[in-house]
């Protein structure tokens, strides 16, 4: 028993020290179907938060209307206000590998490659994945899902109540 325990500990340690690039971040965001008179697909920012001080550790994706002739979509980026304050306002748009089109209602699966973007240099440890949505003539909501970077783990889920459905995160 003792031996198997120490073996387990050893293997866990081994996993934690393997290069993070072996793993990807698998995220599923449920964009809720809303019965409203005027529906616009939400703007969504997906970013990583350091749980200790609530600072941003990187932006993974921003879904917005970059093709808008009027304002290139950037006029409303500030409505994802937590992300805007902690990360967005110092970025320039469109952002390579981050900017993307808004998504339709339903489960939206995205895989963020561990070898690219902010994940490439993310130190192993505890983080929150934050999905923050803001909708024109609608509301604002941020959903946080804790995950451990550095080793594969079980999927974790948190649910929004208004502007977001279930958000599932798995390190694979």
């Amino acid at each position, binding site marked *: 028993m003792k031996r198997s325990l120490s073996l387990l500990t050893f293997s866990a340690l081994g996993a934690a020290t393997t290069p993070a690039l072996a793993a990807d971040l698998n995220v599923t965001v449920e964009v809720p179907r809303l019965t409203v008179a005027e529906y616009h697909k939400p703007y969504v920012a997906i970013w990583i938060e350091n749980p200790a001080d609530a600072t941003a550790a990187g932006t993974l994706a921003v879904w917005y209307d970059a093709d808008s002739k*009027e*304002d*290139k979509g950037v*006029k409303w980026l500030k409505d994802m*206000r937590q992300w805007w*304050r902690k990360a967005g306002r110092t970025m320039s748009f469109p952002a390579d590998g981050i900017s993307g089109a808004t998504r339709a209602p339903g489960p939206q699966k995205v895989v963020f490659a561990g070898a690219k973007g902010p994940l490439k240099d993310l130190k192993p440890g505890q983080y929150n994945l934050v999905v923050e949505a803001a909708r024109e003539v609608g509301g604002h909501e941020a959903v946080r899902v804790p995950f451990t970077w550095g080793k594969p783990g079980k999927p974790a889920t948190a649910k929004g109540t208004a502007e977001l459905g279930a958000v599932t995160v798995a390190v694979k």
Partner: protein
Amino acid sequence: MTFKKRLLAVVAGAALALPIVLPTAANAHRAWLVPSATVLSGESAWVGVDAAISNELFYADHNAMRLDAVVVTQPDGSVEKIQNPATGKYRSIFDVQLSKPGTYKIGSSTSSVMASWTQDGQVKRFRGSPEDFAKQVPAGAADLKTIKSFNRNETFVTRDAPTTTVFAPTGKGLELVPVTHPNDLVAGEAATFKFLLDGKPAADLEVTFAPGNSRYRATPGDFKVKTGADGSFKVTFPEAGMYWMNATVRSGETGRGPGGPGGGMGGPGGGAPGGAQAPATPLAGNGMSAGYTATLEALRP
């Protein structure tokens, strides 16, 4: 005539002609500049600003603010005129285009002098800009008494990342130093600001905060904080919304006695140059006042 000179001339004229009530005056009327947004993104950002003087915040129901002295200081420190200005019965409006990223200061800083002296056996009075004071009041006038006022009223808006150039102190009057940036305020989080008086820490200064939407509350919700020895203070905005912030420093004679009402510019003139009024009474002594007002927005977490 340069823009600045014309502006000063208009300010001086307004000071004599209009019964504008400043926040530093005896009653509770408050002057405010409320922008349509304080945190903005993107190249096409504009804000519209409402400017008025009222008791309840922020409801334009008393007097429009004169816009003659209101200018925009851009993130690079350059000063621009406001756009599309209009003055109605109860409020003035204007636009500001945020053509560059960074923090903009929108507002006015005005200085004025009230003076009395004796000339040819008669008491003379003056009220106006420091420039006109220098021209119209003889050097070395007998029995010269002055009350000097310096007032600021401003608000801040930021496109993209906040910058601090517009907060560079001038060393005149009361000035705000952003320890926490005024466009980085979130309800429930402590923010720190600092006040300077003539460039030095304004210690033991009482700062009043008054939240907007007062019509829908049973009590106004005003609260006060005091600055420490270094001029700084902490404040936590209890709710998201617009807040009116004010601080006033006075010393010596206020000019509110029989010699003439009003502490700042804009009160009814007390025997202005050229005015054929009742015999002027002299000021009782020298004095100064410095006022600072800003509208700040705390966002929802």
